[in-house]
Structures are given as structure tokens and as C-alpha cells.
């Protein structure tokens, strides 16, 4: 076991983890952050995307020990005092989710996308979301949501 100190959605924790523990398993099993989900085992689907110090990572590709001393934001940390994050609101308004399984990862990646490129074209949004798979929506409304969130998210 290795001891790590980590901030998850604004709350600091110190936990013992097996060195092989993936960040996503730490979040789900030890921290109860089940909003973040696992969709594959090859880092293709992006369902587990979270922010590590403000940048998106696939939490199935990061070891919990690598997050030691860092700050993690999950989908559960987006809404503030019950008010949806502008990206969450944009997904809701544009019907950008159906089953919702890819949604946590899509949201985190979409926010990261706009952080890096505050005024993307449709094609840039599509390419920016290439690492996140959705089987329900055909992506059209996700792309629409991200484009509509531009003003609300970009700072």
C-alpha cells in the first residue's frame, strides 16, 4: 500500500492505495465517486475522463499514485450549489445525452476543449472529442451543445 494525498472535487483526502490501482478505481471504489464510469479497457472510449489539475485525462490511464499531491475534478464537482455548470446546462438544452453513460467523460472533455480553444469551429469540436465515444446521440447534439456553450465556459 502507498499513501497518497489528493484533492477530489475540492475536498482533500489521504488514502492508502495499492500501487497498481487506477485513478478511476480509486475514485469509484475508495472515494465513492461513481459519477465517473468505466467504458472500456483500452483507453478508447473516454467515459472515465476527469480533470487532473484542470486538464482532462482518462482516469483509466492514470495510476492513483500519479495523482498524489494533485487536484482531481470529476463530473460530480462541476455543478456549484445546485447550479449546473454551463456545459452541463448546454448538454441539457441541446439534448446532448441519451443513456448518459458517456456523458461524464464528454462533459469533462468538452470543458477542456473550450479551455484550450475558446472559439472552436464545428470540425475542431469534432476532433477535440475524438477520444470520447458515444453510441446513442450520433454526436450531432453534443457538438451543438459544445458550440452553444462557448460563451458560457470560455474565460
Amino acid at each position, binding site marked *: 500500500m502507498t499513501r497518497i494525498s489528493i484533492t477530489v472535487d475540492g475536498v482533500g483526502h489521504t488514502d492508502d492505495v495499492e500501487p*497498481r490501482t487506477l485513478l478511476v478505481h480509486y475514485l*469509484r471504489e475508495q472515494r465513492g465517486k461513481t459519477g465517473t464510469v468505466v467504458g472500456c479497457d483500452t483507453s478508447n472510449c473516454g467515459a472515465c475522463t476527469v480533470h487532473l489539475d484542470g486538464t482532462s485525462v482518462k482516469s483509466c490511464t492514470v495510476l492513483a499514485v500519479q495523482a498524489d499531491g494533485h487536484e482531481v475534478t470529476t*463530473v460530480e464537482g462541476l455543478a456549484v450549489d445546485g447550479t449546473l455548470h454551463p456545459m*452541463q446546462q448546454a448538454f441539457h438544452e441541446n439534448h446532448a445525452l441519451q*443513456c448518459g453513460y458517456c456523458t461524464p467523460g464528454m462533459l469533462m472533455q468538452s470543458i477542456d476543449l473550450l479551455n484550450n480553444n475558446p472559439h472552436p469551429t464545428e470540425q475542431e469540436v469534432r476532433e477535440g472529442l475524438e477520444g470520447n465515444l458515444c453510441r446513442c*446521440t*450520433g*454526436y*450531432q*447534439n453534443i457538438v451543438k451543445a459544445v458550440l452553444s456553450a462557448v460563451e458560457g465556459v470560455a474565460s
Partner: protein
Amino acid sequence: MTATDERPALEVGAPRRRKEDQRLLTGRTRWTDNITLPGMLHLAMVRSPMAHARITAINTDAAKSSTGVVAVYTGADLADEQGGLPNAWAIVPDQVAPNHPSIAVDTVSFAGEVVAVIVARTAAEARDAVELVDVEYDELPVVLDLEAASKGGDLTHAELESNVSAHFVFDSAEAGTGDNVEDAIAASRDGGILLERTFRQQRLIPAFMEPRSIVVDPTAEQLTIWTSTQVPHFVRVFTALVLGIPESKIRVIAPDVGGGFGGKLQFTPEEVLTVIAARHAGRPCKYTESRSESLMAAHHGRDQIQHVTLAATKDGDVTALKVELLADMGAYLGLVTSVIPILGAYMYNGIYRFPAYHFSCTNVFTNKAWTDAYRGAGRPEATYAIERMMDELAAELGVDPIKVREQNWIKHEQFPFTTVAGLEYDSGNYEAATAKAKELFGYDDLRAEQRRRRESGDQVQLGIGISTFTEMCGLAPSRWLGEQGYVGGGWEHASIRMLPTGKVEVIAGTSPHGQGHETAWSQIVADRLGVAFDDVEVLHGDTQISTRGLDTYGSRSLTVGAMAVVAAVDKVIDKARPIAAHLLEANPDDLEYAGGRFGVKGTDKGLGMAEIAFAVFQAHNMPAGVEPSIDAEATFDPDNFSFPHGTHLCAVEVDTETGEVKIRNYTCVDDIGKVVNPLIVEGQVHGGLVQGIAQALWEEALYDDSGTLVTGSFVDYLVPSAADVPSFTTGRTESPATSNVLGVKGVGEAGTIASTPAVVNAVVDAVRHFGINDIQMPCTPHRVWTAIQNASAGDNTPRDVSFEDNAVPSHNAEVSEGSSEGGQA
């Protein structure tokens, strides 16, 4: 809620944002894998790497002594209690099926079959122990080729006499629904047109985003099963039947379910094994599959060879359609494996007035994962075949493919129309949908551009594909299902609970997994009962709450399930009427119900439904002989299917030097009758389109020569990303269904059914001038490029104009780098 004259505009038809979204957007979800119970154990499966082999020995000693392992089971351990997995649909009385174990006992029949189960304290410890189980196999001949398997040779199952499971025939002359096909084919040989084509429906994988997961809690009086399924009611019945547990002792819950697409319309080995393990341990058990396990062992879809013969007059009037199918069942028959190709049997005639039709299908076993429902289930295959053939007919005639369709389709004034397959299409307007689609698409301009590119010999050629589809959906009607050999019914159930505070609980027998029923059902109830949208709560997916239901698949939830909701609402109003009359001291016949309120005709006296609900809750002042309840339930069984239709137009750019296909424009106009929520409908169409396009261009489940799935991860199984697909132009026309009171038709599968042939027709259209009349799906750059090379090399010089510059290697082009070089300017 008190009576008021101010009511919101009608909910039905409004683009309501979904109720479901809040929890899904904020991560407050209840996926099965999120559930953790005290003392819960974790399962991992040891799966066969062999496609066909005899198990000669299994050594579990090392696994049993591994850290955290509580138990290890082999097939021999569970042989007596596991029963056999069900097939619910005998398409012919003499259908043959092998026993379908949840865990292989002495023989494995596909790679991925479970051979041992590990039960451990943690999921990681269970997976560690998988590596320690030593299984010895004697390899058996592996049957992989569908066509060869249908003819004899090696056996998929040594205990069966052949690889053929069933042979099904529908003939319009025999059924009395049309003429004799062979006569029409013979006639076509004399001056008419006779086209024969063979199409390959490749094997696909549903690839829902949430891997399947099961949690079983055996500790209470009732065994509780949480499972990521489309069909909790099925799981309850079959758990009872297969394992001999009284049905009343089983509660099944489908919590939030992350997509299905038919892939979770199943009763699975993993469900059976988790139940068994939990009962043995006397503790809760969980099993969650990995993605590679899901791709390998959850059921696949499609996988057919279609031989199609179409006869027509020299003027293009189709006189006969003959369809001969080979359908790959894989190694076993799952829940409805056998009927998937047969669900297409009545659909090959599509939207057309064909006078003669013959369909035959041979279901064949191979040593692969079993196939079963995947979005569209039989109807995409049928639509693909006929829509490809109509393009082939147009090419033969040298006419616009829309014209030849128009010449043969059912005119809007001919509805209701009984087809050559014996179905009665209730309503539709193919002319209107096509006209609107052409306009939105810019059909004439794109055709003009296509001509320009042909004439200039552009390296990038434009192709235009058409798909004018219809489908039969809304599974139901029970009588029809029974006649076809299905053991179950097709009805749907709903109940309404009128709570004392004026809130309304709708309990649905359907079980959504992304479709937005909570929103759409609320809209329907809000209008019909006259209550606020937000006052309606929709409950589903728990057999202890939703006590009757047949779940969600086959685009049935709205056309069947919501009709049960409507009927239950009407019963609530009927039950409330005498109570309202009593409280208002009026004659029940003098009451009219509107806007959530009983009013006394000709007066301003009235009583709101919420007030009645509270009065019933108190039950202080009920009319004599009336029970103090206005709750109601209803079961609905329709008389007919739902027949949505639409016209889909696709323009692709094909780079003739690389074979790359790019979708330039995709426009569709769907007619699904009345629409409850246009936002949800559009979402269903978008998602359906991408799945159908993915079959046309990217997805294929591939096995190697030893029967190993080589597309066993998302690295190799190409589910498209946002960067792979365009935005779509969608439109609607509206021919209300006459088979239900809301006038609605199904939409869940429409996009997938329609889009595949639109895309492939476009790809073929782009390269037809090379002499190409088919490219096998998925139309990868490699296949498109090879088709161009082969067509050109085969002295099949481009039939159109000015392609000299695209000249090709003089040798019979093998696929290798550099062989595409010609004299390209």
C-alpha cells in the same frame, strides 16, 4: 392542484428538455456497477480461448488458494443446477438447437464461452485468480464459414446432425398474398429484366457504452437482481424457469442502463452464474464485464448472406422478388436469435407494390458468439437488400433511382395497403417524404455536380445514394407473435397512482435505457390527465413496482407501452367521474372532463383531479358502493404493427486514388406519424443514422481462422467518433398512424434501418462508371480502392466519360502499395 382556466399549451409535440438529464449530467447515477452492498463478493470469468474444443481437465487449485478467493466453480460443479439458457422463438416446429449452458461443462463452442467462475473479495483479486486457472483442451474442428457450414462438413456441435437449425419459407402464392415468383421470373427472361445479387451483411457488435453488470443479493426473503438489461421482466421469468426459483421470490431491477440497442435484450450466462454464486455464498455478488469480454461474449448482430433475385418488365415495373438467406446463429440460440432474420421476412418488399414474393432462410450454427437482436434486427438487412436492388434496377434501366422507386411504390391514396408479404400498412406518404428530402438535400444540384465531376475526370467522384425505407415495428401484436412461434406475448402494461398530494405516479412496463420515457410519458399524461408535466413521475424497471411488463425493444415502447399509459389514464378519469359527481352533487352525465377538472355543464361548478385524489385518500365521503381509489391499470395489445417510413439521401465523395469515402451530405425525412417530443425524436434519428452508417463504412466483427475474435477491443472494433461523422439534415412529414389513439409510430430503429443502404448506394453510385455494381460492407478505403482497381483491370473500362487519365495498372491489381499509380495528372 386546483382547477384553473389557465393551462399550458399542449405538452405533446413540445420539445421538452428531459427529466432524466439532471441525474445523468451530475453523476448522481445508479448504474448497476455503482451498487455496493455489505459483504459483497466479486466474480470474474475464465473464458475459453478456443472456439471449439473438448475440455479435458481444469485445475483450479492455484486459483482457490489465491488471495481473497472464496470459491471457484467449473462447469462440472454447476452442471446439475445451471439449466439451459432459453430460446423463446421456434420459427418452425422442427427448429433444432443445442443445449445452451451458462458455463461449458465438457465442450466449448465459441471463443469467449465461460469455463470457470472465480468468486473473490475484490474484483481485482477475482481477476488475478483468472490467470491461475489451468484448463486443458482437445481442439475440435472449428466451423466458421457460414456458407460452407450450411452445406455440411464439420459440425459446430458434435451432438447435432448438421449445422442447420431451421429452414423458414414464406411464399406469396402459397400464402395467398400474391403471385407465383417462379412464373414471374420465367416471364422476365423473355424481354424483361432479371437481376441477381448477393449481399453480405457483416457481423456487427451492439457495443452499448455501459458494459453489462449484475449484482445479486440473496440475503433477504426475495432474491434481488440488479442488472444492466433492457428486459427486467424477462430476466425475472427466465431466472425462475431456468433455475427453478419461484418467480414470486425474485425481484429484478434495471436501474440506470447505459444503452442497449438490442444487445441487452437477452437472458445471459453471466446473470445465471451470478445468481448461482450468490446463492452458494449466501452473500451479495457482483459481476461486471470488461469491454473485451463484452465484445467477445455478449451477443452479436446481423451476419447473413443474402441472395436476391428481382424480376421486372423492360419498363421497370417489378414483377417478382425472391430472397434466399443464410443466417449465422453463431454457436447457440439466445433469447430470439432464431427469429432475427425472420423479422425481415415481411419487409423485403419494402414500400413497394410487388405482385410476387418468395422468401426463404436457413439458420446455421458456427463456432462464433451467438447473434441476436441488434438495432433494427432483420429489418436493416431487408431494407438494405431491397434498396440496393432498386438502385441496381435503376442502373439497368438507365433512369434516376428515385424514378424507379416512384414507379413501384405504394401511392399515398392506396393506404391502407395490404402488401405481398401479407402486412397491412396503415398509413404513409412516400411522395411527400421524398419530395421534401430532395428539396432539403439539393438533389438536382448534387446530380449536376456529379455530372461535372464525371466529365472532368475528377479524382474525387460524387455518389448519391437513396433509401426509401419502411419498417414494421412496435412488437406486439400478441396474436401475430403466437402464430409465428414466439412463446411470449406482445402486450404492454401501465398503471397510474393518484397520490393524495396531487402528484401522479405512472408505472410503466417498458424499460428505457436512454430513450427518454420519463419525459415523453410525462408529456402524454400531462395532456391527457390535465396535470402539470412536473407533477408526473414515471417509474419503471423494477419488477416489484412495475409488476407487469414486456420491456423495451423493437421500437415498441411508445406505440405499445404508452398506449397502455393512455388507457390507464382514461380509466382514472372514468373512476373519478362518479366520485366527482357525488362531491359536486351532480349527475355523472352532466360532467365534462377537461384541463384536469370535472366541470358541471352549463355552470362554473367543478372539481380538480387533485382535489378528487385527496377526497379519495380521505374516503370520508364516497358514493355508496364505490371503492375509495381512482388508481388504475391497463394492458394494451395492438391489432397491428407500426409502419414508419422515410426517404434518406446521402452524398459521398469517393477519392478514386485512395478509396476513401467521405460523407458530404446526409439528409433524411422521416414520417413517424404524430410526434410526442421532437427533440427526443431527432436524437433517436441522429444516433440511429450513425449506427447504420457505421455498418456501411466501418464496423465489422472479424474472426481469424481459429475462431478468435480479432476485433475484441475498441482499438479494432471501429465504433465511430465525432470526427468520423457529419451533421445531418433532418426533416419530417406526418402521416398519423391509424393503429393507436395518439397516431404515433416507432422511431428507435428507423435511422439504423434506413441509412446503411443510402450510404452504400452512394458509394456504388460514385464508382459505378468503372463498371462496379457492388462493394461489400464495410466499404473501407481498401475495399473501395480494390474494387476500382479490379474493375478497371478486368477490362471493364469506365463506361462514362473521360476517365482515361485515371488509367490503371495493366496487371490484375493486387492490393499493395503503389499499385494505384496510373497516369493521373
